[in-house]
């Protein structure tokens, strides 16, 4: 739902970087995004595609590096990585789980072209 404002913030950030470093062309923006970030990659892609038309980023591709959640079972201490949240430990069945990480949402790097 809020992906339009997120896409706009992302574009402002990248355009500022482009100007500051006098980058001729940004071909790719690579984002790291976790399942707990509250951002839906498909919706962000859609918002970005609508906004980039007619801007200096029109040809710039968005790439998502999706990370996983690390879940730890408080009973058997089993640790596992998943994309979707589990309600029970796959090893011992306990529902006493703790979720770690997966909040990340940042620009990892830009791929730029010299010519």
């Amino acid at each position, binding site marked *: *739902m*809020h992906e339009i404002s997120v896409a706009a913030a992302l574009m402002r950030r990248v355009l500022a970087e482009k100007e500051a470093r006098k980058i001729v062309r940004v071909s790719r923006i690579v984002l790291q995004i976790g399942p707990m970030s509250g951002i839906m990659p498909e919706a962000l892609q859609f918002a970005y595609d609508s906004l980039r038309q007619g801007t200096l980023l029109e040809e710039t591709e968005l790439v998502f590096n999706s990370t996983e959640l690390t879940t730890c079972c408080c009973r058997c201490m089993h640790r596992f990585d998943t994309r979707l949240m589990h309600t029970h430990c796959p090893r011992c069945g306990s529902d006493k789980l703790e979720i770690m990480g997966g909040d990340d949402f940042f*620009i990892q790097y830009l791929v730029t072209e010299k010519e």
Partner: protein
Amino acid sequence: MSEIIPIGEKVLSENDRLAAEIRARLVQLNLPSLNLVSSPGSGKTTLLEKTLAHFGGRLRIALIAGDVQTENDARRLEAAGGALVRPIITGGSCHLDARMVSRVLTGMDLTGCGLLIIENVGNLVCPSSYDLGEEKKVVLLSTAEGDDKPLKYPAIFRRAALLVITKSDLLGLSDFDVERAERHARMVNPEIEILRLSSRSGEGMAGWYAWLERLATRPPAADPNAKGIMRD
């Protein structure tokens, strides 16, 4: 020839910078602050009305009430008396951001206020991405909703310091299992504090008032990060 330029910065760093400025200002004023988040209809405004009536002149509360349209909430809260109320009409946006809050805060005379509460737009998803510079996020979940909401919308439950389970007077009338809801909330956030209350019946309200009072009367915080920001 391609070149890779590492950035390693949060996408919403622009919002985060503004939020840090707000936070530094609030620390300077020694003004505790809350960002209240929930789905539409879980009882944010009603809880605030009761809260304002309870504290009356004893604790002056500054309130920023966000809504997509209408100033209805702000009017209701103003009528409850005793508070400095300012509306933010987002005009379609599903969340408040630090820029909106900063703009409103600039025009508020916070002298004599002991607590700032920001009532976010009713939405469990988008507000979780936007830091408003508040000290703590409070998430409300009503017993008329699903007890699996903390798992369905983990981001906000993970970032909240307190979960308030509202409409406790309706427990037993639906399939909402309060223990299960609490277990789910602790699964995504083991540190989260939890209160159960009903603004309508008054049940559990004393716990909420005590929680707010502890926050409002605590000694000035020594937040090293905030101090760093003020030095700049």
